[in-house]
């Protein structure tokens, strides 16, 4: 079992800390500053903090204005509410290629208690479909914290998915994250489990269970869904001959689709996708139980691994 910590608070505090070294950073929010832990930034840098009220679409356009004005805006709201700004993101962020950083907080099913209106199960698919967009799903608080300077110094649109829940801590301070790159976090040659976000810890737990059955599963962390680390994916397919993708998202259009798009062209091997089937979810009393109920349990990953291994050449 992993220790857990408060990813969104660590992310929010890290934004505040980074703002001290980068005066170009400004933060926007749509009436959810306290929820997304932007209050420390607001208190320390009131002149660089802008609350637009319940106006997500307007917030994205305003962030575009900040970017055109030479600053680095981080626009924060709930990931599930960002879809109302899809046209703004498509036209004014992605197409106009403006330097806007969009933070979708309370991502996936992490706002379990507020129900499907507040779950975000298709944000990665929507963002990934947009040219020019970089899509990041950090897998723990260390990554969430470490991507802030990276995305700030990268020129271009970025979408960052942040969980509401306390996430298992996978990495220590020595962890290096690079945009567009994944890492093997556990060696193995029988099957590869590719995961990000909350699903990375579950993939690691599944690898433990598979090991008990004599199966050596490789586990790959892929926090950048776009641009995808194609070389690493193809290498894993060549070496392990079977892939299971694990994401807290619909299986349509997200990490699994991205990986499959590469493999079908470069190295077709059996693939299975762990994620939410093409359904809306429901309200629950806690995040983990909800993920289990919608097909993302550790046992489900184990079963998928067994399934794809049966189809291996």
């Amino acid at each position, binding site marked *: 079992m992993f220790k857990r910590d408060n990813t969104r608070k660590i992310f929010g505090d890290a934004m505040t800390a980074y703002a001290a070294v980068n005066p170009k950073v*400004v933060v926007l929010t749509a009436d959810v500053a306290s929820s997304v832990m932007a209050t420390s930034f607001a208190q320390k840098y009131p*002149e*660089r903090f*802008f609350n*637009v*009220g319940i*106006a997500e*679409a*307007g*917030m994205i*356009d*305003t*962030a*575009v*204005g*900040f*970017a*055109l*004005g*030479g*600053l680095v*805006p981080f626009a924060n709201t709930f990931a599930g509410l960002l879809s109302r700004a899809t*046209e*703004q993101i498509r*036209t*004014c962020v992605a*197409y*106009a*290629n403006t330097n806007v950083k969009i933070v979708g907080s309370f991502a996936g099913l992490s706002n379990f208690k507020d129900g499907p209106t507040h779950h975000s199960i298709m944000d990665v698919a929507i963002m990934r479909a947009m040219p020019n967009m970089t899509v990041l799903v950090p897998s723990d608080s260390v990554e969430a914290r470490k991507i802030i300077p990276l995305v700030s110094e990268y020129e271009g649109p970025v979408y960052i998915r942040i969980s509401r829940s306390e996430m298992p801590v996978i990495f220590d301070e020595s962890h290096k994250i690079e945009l567009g790159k994944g890492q093997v976090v556990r060696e193995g040659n029988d099957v590869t489990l590719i995961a990000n976000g909350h699903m990375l810890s579950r993939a690691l737990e599944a690898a433990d269970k598979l090991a008990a059955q004599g199966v050596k599963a490789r586990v790959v962390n892929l926090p950048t869904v776009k641009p995808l680390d194609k070389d690493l994916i193809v290498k894993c397919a060549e070496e392990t001959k079977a892939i299971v993708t694990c994401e807290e998202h619909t299986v349509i259009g997200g990490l699994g689709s991205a990986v499959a798009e590469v493999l079908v062209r470069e190295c077709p091997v059996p693939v299975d996708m762990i994620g939410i089937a093409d359904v809306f979810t429901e309200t629950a009393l806690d995040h983990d139980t909800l993920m289990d109920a919608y097909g993302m349990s550790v046992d489900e990953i184990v079963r998928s691994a067994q399934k794809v291994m049966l189809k291996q050449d």
Partner: protein
Amino acid sequence: MTGKVAHSPQLVKELEDLARQLRIDLIEMIYRRKSGHPGGSLSAADILAALFFHQLRIDPMNPDWESRDRFILSKGHACSTLYAALARRGFFPMETLQAWGQIGCCLQGHPDRLKTPGVDMTSGCLGHGINIAAGLLLAAQVRGLDYRTYVVIGDGEVQAGVLWEGAMLAGKYKLNKLITVMDYNKVQLDGKVEDIMPIEPVRQKWEAFNWSVLEINGHNMKEILEALDRAVEAKDKPTVIIAHTVKGKGVSYMEGKSDWHGKVPNDDEFKVAMEELKAHV
């Protein structure tokens, strides 16, 4: 009106002539390309002439000048007027206008900030301009820059809810350097604005969002210039200039007709349009 010296008759005449020239240019462009939006481009011609040839602090030799005034054509479908103005102002050669819309040309079907020199922001989907302008001006405050941001919106555009998110924001932050001109030509794609989705009382809407409102005849150059002068002097509010215009202004058979929102004149119609527009030059 402002205590300033009135604009010289010569300046007014020059700008009127430029507006007529822009109308000729844009009808030629739309006719040549067999595509475009003549109605709303003609209605905005006087406004854009005043902005690009008098009001805006811009430098065609240095389109990315940090302290330049920003301009957003939020009603992006009127880009033929914008392209003609940019070319005549020297941002790119006049010949470029002839290639408008061809693959590889820097002039897109709607404005594209990445392709066209002098275009500060991509547009085409309505309702974005005011929010973006607000962000530009808040960024200027953070950075200590003193540029103004001018936005030209349509009247049908006012129907888009997101526009009012920006209006509310600009009111909250008292963005007095935000100057919006509403090209109120009373006609949109499907018909009259008052039939499709009435926007009146529109003056009161802006006032309710804490904007200062000026109302002018958007085809009277003197009134346009005076309104811009007053807007520049605004202290603690953004300004909207409600410019009453005529859709298709300058081409008799297009005036006031929604059919000419996105229609292209045929050979005979083109000839008539040119005769009418050139008769005034």
